[in-house]
């Protein structure tokens, strides 16, 4: 049994790799392991919708899911949020290259586009 977090990552990858919105059946077909139950993937994708990773639209009786952001945008906003929290809790996150000065923090922020939306 795969870990739920890992399944969420697999589903997101399937959605990012696809060029059109996908139904739960489409997602199952696109996943490396096709043996996963419909309800499992439905739960995973509903979780992702709650966490605002995906958007959905109802087409006839089924929902079609698409990523809320591109992979690059999602990674950038995640890194930016990590950077913001790591200043407050240096004991929890230990960075290889420490950001000590405000100039360093600004330089690092320049690499990351502004956050488009607030998760959670």
């Amino acid at each position, binding site marked *: 049994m795969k870990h739920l977090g890992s399944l969420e990552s697999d589903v997101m990858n399937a959605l990012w790799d696809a060029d059109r919105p996908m139904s739960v059946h489409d997602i199952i077909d696109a996943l490396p392991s096709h043996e996963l139950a419909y309800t499992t993937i439905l739960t995973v994708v509903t979780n992702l919708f709650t966490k605002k990773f995906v958007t959905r639209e109802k087409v006839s009786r089924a929902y079609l899911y698409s990523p809320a952001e591109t992979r690059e945008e999602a990674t950038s906003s995640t890194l930016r949020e990590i950077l913001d929290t790591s200043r407050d809790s240096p004991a*929890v996150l230990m*960075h290889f290259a420490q950001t000590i*000065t405000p100039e360093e923090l600004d330089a690092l922020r320049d690499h990351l586009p502004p956050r488009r939306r607030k998760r959670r």
Partner: protein
Amino acid sequence: MTLALTFVVTAALLGFAAPRVLAQMARYASPRIQLLGWIASLVAFGYAVISAVTIAAWPNHAPAEQITEIWTRCLSSAAHAVQPWLDELIIAAAIIVAIAAACRTMLCARRQKRARSSILDYHRDVVAVVARTEEGEHRIMWLDHPVPMAYSVAGKPGFVVATEGLTACLTPRERQAVLAHEHAHLDHRHHRIQTVCGVLDAALPFIPLLHQAPAAVAALLEYEADRSAANATSAQAVRSALVRVTENSFGAKLPPSPCTRSRLQHLATPYRDRPTVTGYIASILLPLTATLTLAIAMMTTTSLLLHAASF
């Protein structure tokens, strides 16, 4: 009361004078010895404070006080001159201060725990979804981003988060050095040491030993992790990885921070002052024994002077 006072003097010496002595150690001692010195000073400080309050609050005389009877006799004449109500007032004040300090420390520890669990939740709910997870000795979450970045997160178990930028900017050996650095943080429980220092500083920042410990210990932990990474790969690999990650993250136009500069210096002299067993024992025992001896000497001199003055 005499013994309690001796511990109070010990705690004061440790709290206010130890940071200066420990800062001097940076000139000749290896990072590991310095780290032990800081930890031993923090433990000795805690021991002295708890002992002082326990002995002061003990009904009648604390059992340990009998041992010090010989030299406390000198102080007895001075102690008898002190009003009995003053004695009780000091004990009551000490207990109140100790309870307040303990409560503050617990509050700060709780705040820190909450921050940690919120960061862990964020990694489970968000980072794990965006990242490619690599299982191994320590889990690594790879984020697909060109900025080279790596950090370790405390937890049960802890894990490493790294960006694909590391693969793009660094050679395989340099990348291995960065991961070995992060693994050293996790294997040697550096987050825990740093958390304790952070909590003590947040609770009692007016004591120089506790206030200066987080920054000093953080730097020493980085040297230690660099040393472990250098052993796993080579000092040169860690050095060049550090330079490249710093340049690619913060821009080459920015001068390296003092922390990065001193890490590079330590890596340039990898085998200077290799710690000996005597060094380890001295760094653990010296903070308490030296300050306790100094406190006893100070107390004895004061009591002798008071004794002489009373005649």
